[in-house]
């Protein structure tokens, strides 16, 4: 049997992430966030710190504990470090980087820092500090901002190790968008705490550490199609920690995409699948999460 007109469609993989894979591929207690205006929020109420992930675009706005979500860095985040020294803190010019940008890209998470819940006068100098305590992942992480005139300011960078100096002072009552940059695809666990001196008592207080999981999906993989011993064989390179789901439909532009089995977990090596009950013709795509 000969299959005809099989197609790889890497681009829609990114587009469809948010649409219907968000809850489908995560453990029930975790939500994958792939797009939209989202903030790492710092609050303090009744003597307790409140670090959270806020979703401004949801109606009503949704809020999660940091460990309740996986923040996805989609394929559209992939870029190359530009020539010159200005962005050398990210790596060598020409090397890949994966960046959730300070300016919203509708295909990506628009991830900000939010202290708007902290009223003026609560903390000394109306400031708190967000400190990176540790990082686990396949590459480096940098948090930085680019000014109006194009100059980068590095707020955090794990490339030179993580030390108590890896903190960023944030004004209270503020909300800003920054660049979240990673040097390689895979899963990153960033552990932060927040601290500040309470103006009323002079007491210095530090939050419990909060772990944020960011999953850098990497470039959209090319789906390779061939005829295997038991039928059609689909193959693609995988990234450790990234989940893949194969979908198909019979018409290029119409109909629902049908899942082929459960999500496959990336290993860092090539993954393959032989779709059962493949039809005479069809279109396949990969969704990443």
């Amino acid at each position, binding site marked *: 049997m000969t299959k005809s007109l099989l197609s790889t469609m890497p681009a829609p993989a990114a587009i469809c992430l948010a649409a219907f894979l968000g809850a489908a591929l995560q453990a029930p207690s975790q939500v994958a966030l792939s797009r939209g*205006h989202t903030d790492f929020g710092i609050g303090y109420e009744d003597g307790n710190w409140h670090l959270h992930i806020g979703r*401004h*675009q949801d*109606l009503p706005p949704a809020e999660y504990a940091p460990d309740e979500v996986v923040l996805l860095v989609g394929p559209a985040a992939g*870029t190359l470090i*530009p020539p010159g020294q*200005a*962005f050398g803190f990210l790596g060598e010019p020409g090397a890949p980087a994966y*960046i959730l*940008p*300070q*300016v*919203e890209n*509708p295909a990506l998470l628009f991830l900000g820092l939010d202290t*708007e819940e902290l009223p003026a006068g609560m903390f000394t100098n109306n400031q708190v500090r967000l400190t990176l305590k540790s990082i686990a992942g396949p590459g480096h992480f940098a948090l930085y*901002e*680019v*000014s*109006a*005139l*194009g*100059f*980068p300011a590095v707020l955090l960078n794990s490339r030179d190790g993580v030390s108590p100096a890896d903190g960023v002072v944030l*004004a209270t*009552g*503020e*909300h*800003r*968008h*920054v*660049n979240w*940059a990673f040097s390689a695809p895979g899963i990153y666990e960033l552990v932060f705490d927040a601290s500040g001196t309470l103006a009323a008592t002079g007491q210095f207080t530090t939050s419990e550490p909060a772990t944020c999981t960011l999953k850098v999906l990497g470039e959209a993989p090319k789906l390779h199609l061939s005829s295997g011993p038991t039928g059609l064989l689909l193959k693609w390179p995988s990234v450790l920690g990234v989940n893949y789901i194969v979908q198909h439909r019979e018409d290029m532009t119409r109909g629902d995409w049908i899942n082929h089995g459960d999500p496959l977990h990336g290993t860092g090596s090539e993954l393959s699948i032989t779709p059962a009950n493949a039809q005479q013709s069809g279109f396949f795509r990969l969704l990443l999460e």
Partner: protein
Amino acid sequence: MIKILGLLAAAHLTCVGICRLHAQCHLFTEEHVDVLAAVWNDDTQTLSLVASDDTHGGILYASNQCVVVASEGAQFTLPGGTPFGNEGDPIWILPQSPYPGLPYVGISAERLTPGTFNDPISIRLTRIEGPGHFILWQSSSFGIFDIKMDSRDGIDANDQVTPAVGGHEHHNWGFTTNGVYRLYFQAAAMRAGQSTNTLSPETPFTFHVLPLRPFEHWVATNWPCVCATNIIAAGADPDADGLINIMEYAFGNNPHQTLLSNLPNVTFVSVNGTNYGALRYVRSPDATDLAFEVRGSDSPGGAGEPLTNIASVISNGTTETVTLRDSTPQAAATKRFFQLRVQLNPP
């Protein structure tokens, strides 16, 4: 008979459109304010642009109820290689990221419910009044400049932003020189299921880019939010006392009071035993952007000649009294006419 004429004013601040006078005026100096917030009124079926004070719970202000102040801290020096001017030129920027001491100015379609309007909406720059140019841009993660509006090459349909319905954006608001600017914007949004755009009124928002020039400062002090030309223009006379604003400003008067105070008057001075007619007038020493000229002539409409002989300058504290004597002795003329001219120097 000696007659005095007070003449000549030049207007640089004009405003037409939907400006209205409001008693209250709010200055945004360091708030997170979405100056261009698109709002739909379901009752009146109208779209409008207002300012939303997000630092204080999203309080809304009409455009003629608020002013955005860019303090001296907004002045930066351009490095080489930008599209905003020559290296070393000054530029005033309200940045896309929060910056200490400056307003954090955003653009918002958050108050439009997703699904009720097609995505995205557009907000166009339609006009600019001010001493310089206005540029709106974003800096990317790698410092690439994405210019959305730029008055330097004229203003057309390309000078726009297109926020997503329910979305919120921040940009760099750049001004090429200091002064008072009025930027006019118009929003266009297409309601779901319709085929034509709903337009907001053309709406002026006022920016004070510091330092203001002296006359700008005088106007901004007396009418901080007003942009109606029949009130704030140099040639306007809002208190209807016969003295136009530029003269009230020149004499150090209160333009809200119907008082003909500090008017020039005629006197005589004696120099080495010779008497001369003279014009005595009061001027505000703060009005450094004004040029005063006194002319003397033999007829009311005569061009005459400028008088340059300063008889005295006496400080009164907030004002000073200047006396300029005629060049023609009193005995040599049967009548003389003095004219005080005041001109606002261009920025």
